C-alpha cells in the first residue's frame, strides 16, 4: 500500500502538504474494493449455498434469474434495498441504526490482512493473525448492540447467545492458530505462508506449496488442530450446527429479528463474508496459502514481467481453490448436521476443544524440539501425515461412492449443475 501511495504522489506531483490526503484516498479506495468484494462474494456464496442445498435435498434450487440462477443474488439485493426500513417504535434508535454497520465493518476490516497472492494484499501487518482475531471480534459488539437496541425478547436472547458463543469460541480458535504462528515464527500472514514453501534451493518436489509443506500435515497434533480451528470458526461465523444466535425454531431470527430492508441485508452480507475470513485463515495457517506446488520462493524472486503476472495469477488460483474447498465444507456441514443445544455448544467449546488445543500446543512445542522443521525426521513425518490425510480423503470418496451405488432410488451419476 505504501508503494501505491508513493507511486501516486510521484506520478501526480502531489505537494507534501497534500500527501496525507492522497494516502487517505488510497486507503478509501482499497476499503471500497474490499467492501465490494465482500458483498459480491457473499452473493456468490448465497447462490452456491442454495444450489448445493437444493441438490442435497434432491431439488434443483434457484435457476431462473440469469444463466442457471447466477444473478439471483442481485435480484435479492434489489428486493432488500427497495423494502421499507422499519425501526420499531420502542427501539433505541441510534444504536439500532448503527449496529449493522459495526458488524459489517468488523468483517470487512478483517479482509485487510488476508493475502490473495504474493503481492495482492492490502496491508501485510506483522501482527496479522492477531489483528484478524481482534477485528472480527468487533462483530460481537454489533450483535449485542442490535439485540439490546431492538427492544425485543427474541433479539435480546439472540444477542446474548451470540455474545456468549463468539467470545467463547475466540479462545479455541486463537489457540488453534498459535502453533502455526510458533512454527513460522511470525504473526504476519504473508510470513506464515512464506514459511510453508520449503527451502529456497530445494528440489522441486520439496519446494513450494506441496501438501507436505503445509502446516496441517506437520504432525498429528496440527492435523487435529485444523479441525479444532474449523469447528471454532463455524461457531464464530454462527453457522450450523452452531447457529444458535438465530435459531429459527426458538428465536424467530435471533438478533436481527426486528431488522428489515437494507440493514437486514448488511447483516447477511457480513455473516456470509465471514465464511471467507474463516476459510482464508484456515488456508493461510494450515493449507499453505497461495503457494504453488513446485514453485520455490527463489522462482518468485527471479520472475519479472509476464512470468511474474502468470505466477501471481496461479498463486491467486491456488488460494481461491483451497478457500472454495473449505467454504464448500462449511456449506455441506450445514446440510449434514442438526443444530446443537446451547449447553452442548458450550460443552464442545470448554470441555473438548479447549483442552485439546492446550495439549496440542505443548505437544507441538515438544515436536519442534525433537524434529525441527528442516530435519529429515520432520520430513518423513510430513510425508506420512500427507499419506494419512489423503487416505482419509480416499476413504471419504469410497463412502460417497458406496452411498451413491447402494441408493434405493436409481441414482444417476451426473455433474453438479
Amino acid at each position: 500500500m505504501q508503494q501505491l501511495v508513493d507511486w501516486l504522489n510521484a506520478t501526480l506531483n502531489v505537494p507534501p502538504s497534500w500527501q496525507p490526503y492522497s494516502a487517505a484516498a488510497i486507503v478509501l479506495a482499497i476499503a471500497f474494493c474490499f467492501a465490494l468484494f465482500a458483498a459480491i462474494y457473499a452473493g456468490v456464496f448465497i447462490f452456491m449455498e442454495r444450489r448445493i442445498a437444493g441438490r442435497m435435498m434432491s431439488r434443483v434450487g434457484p435457476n431462473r434469474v440469469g444463466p442457471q440462477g447466477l444473478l439471483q443474488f442481485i435480484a435479492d439485493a434489489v428486493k432488500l434495498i427497495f423494502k421499507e426500513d422499519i425501526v420499531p417504535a420502542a427501539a433505541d434508535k441510534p444504536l439500532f441504526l448503527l449496529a449493522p454497520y459495526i458488524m459489517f465493518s468488523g468483517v470487512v476490516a478483517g479482509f485487510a490482512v488476508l493475502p490473495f497472492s504474493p503481492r495482492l494484499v492490502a496491508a501485510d501487518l506483522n501482527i496479522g493473525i492477531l489483528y484478524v482475531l481482534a477485528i472480527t471480534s468487533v462483530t460481537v459488539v454489533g450483535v449485542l448492540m442490535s439485540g439490546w437496541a431492538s427492544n425485543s425478547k427474541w433479539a435480546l436472547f439472540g444477542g446474548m447467545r451470540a455474545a456468549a458463543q463468539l467470545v467463547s469460541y475466540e479462545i479455541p480458535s486463537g489457540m488453534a492458530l498459535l502453533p502455526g504462528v510458533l512454527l513460522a515464527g511470525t504473526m504476519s500472514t504473508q510470513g506464515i505462508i512464506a514459511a510453508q514453501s520449503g527451502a529456497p534451493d530445494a528440489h522441486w518436489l520439496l519446494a513450494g506449496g506441496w501438501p507436505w509443506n503445509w502446516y496441517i500435515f506437520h504432525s498429528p497434533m496440527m492435523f487435529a488442530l485444523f479441525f479444532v480451528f474449523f469447528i471454532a470458526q463455524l461457531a464464530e461465523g454462527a453457522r450450523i450446527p452452531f447457529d444458535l444466535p438465530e435459531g429459527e425454531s426458538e428465536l424467530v431470527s435471533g438478533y436481527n429479528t426486528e431488522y428489515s430492508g437494507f440493514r437486514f441485508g448488511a447483516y447477511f452480507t457480513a455473516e456470509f463474508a465471514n465464511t471467507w475470513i474463516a476459510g482464508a485463515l484456515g488456508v493461510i495457517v494450515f493449507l499453505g496459502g497461495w503457494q504453488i506446488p513446485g514453485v520455490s520462493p527463489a522462482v518468485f524472486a527471479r520472475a519479472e514481467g509476464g512470468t511474474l503476472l502468470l505466477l501471481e495469477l496461479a498463486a491467486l488460483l491456488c488460494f481461491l481453490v483451497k478457500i472454495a474447498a473449505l467454504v464448500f465444507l462449511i456449506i455441506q456441514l450445514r446440510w449434514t448436521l442438526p443444530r446443537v443445544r446451547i449447553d452442548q455448544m458450550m460443552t464442545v467449546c470448554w470441555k473438548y476443544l479447549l483442552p485439546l488445543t492446550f495439549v496440542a500446543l505443548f505437544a507441538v512445542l515438544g515436536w519442534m524440539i525433537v524434529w525441527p522443521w528442516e530435519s529429515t525426521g520432520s520430513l518423513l513425518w510430513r510425508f506420512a501425515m500427507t499419506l494419512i490425510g489423503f487416505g482419509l480423503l480416499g476413504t471419504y470418496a469410497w463412502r460417497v461412492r458406496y452411498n451413491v451405488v447402494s441408493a434405493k432410488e436409481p441414482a444417476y451419476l451426473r455433474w453438479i449443475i
Partner: protein
Amino acid sequence: MGAVQSYFRDIKNALLSSFEGMAVTMSWLFRRPITIQYPYHKSEPQKPLGGPETLPERYRGFLEVDMAVCSACLACERACPIECISIGVEKVPPPNDPAGAPVRALVRFDIDLGKCMYCGLCSEPCPTGAIRHTRHFEGAMTQVENLVVRFVDPAKPVIPYKVKKGETPATVPNGSVIEPLLVRRHFDAPAPELPPLAPAPPAGAP
C-alpha cells in the same frame, strides 16, 4: 475410568457420525434431482384416456370440434353465454369444381379457450356431437393469443355435414383434434400471426 472412556467415546462418535453424514450428503450431489421442471419438462407424454385415470368421469376439459360432422347450424355459437365461439359461413365455389355454383361452407371456426368457462352449454344443443369437451386441461401459455384455437383453415373452407334424421354420425376419437392444435403447442411459443379473417358474410347469409 468411566468418565474418561465416555469422553473419548464422545469424540470418536462425533467424528465418525459427521464423517458418515457428510458422505451421505455428498452422495446426493451425484444424483439427479427428483424435481421435474414443469412446464419445460414433463414426466411423460400426456395420456388423457390411457393410464391411471384421475379425472372425474364427466370432466369438462378443452372444447374441440370434429369438423367432419359439423353441420354449421350455429347452435353452439348462440348457446355460448360469453361468446367465445365465432363461426364464419360463406358461399364459396365447391372445392373440387372451382367453376361450379357457390355452395355454403364454413370458413372460420374459432374457440377462444382463454375465455371459455367450460359450462358445457355449447355441446348440449349440438345435433351431431361435433363440439364436445375433451379431457385435456394443461393449457398454460405465456401468450394468451395461443389459446385461440382455429378449427378451420380459411384457405380450405369446410362443406358442412348434412344431418340425417335418427342417425348419430361417427366422430374421431375424443381429444385427437385438440392435441395437435393446442396440447402439443409449446407453452412459451410466440403469439401466432393469425391469418387474415374471412370477409364479413354478406347480409342475409345464415
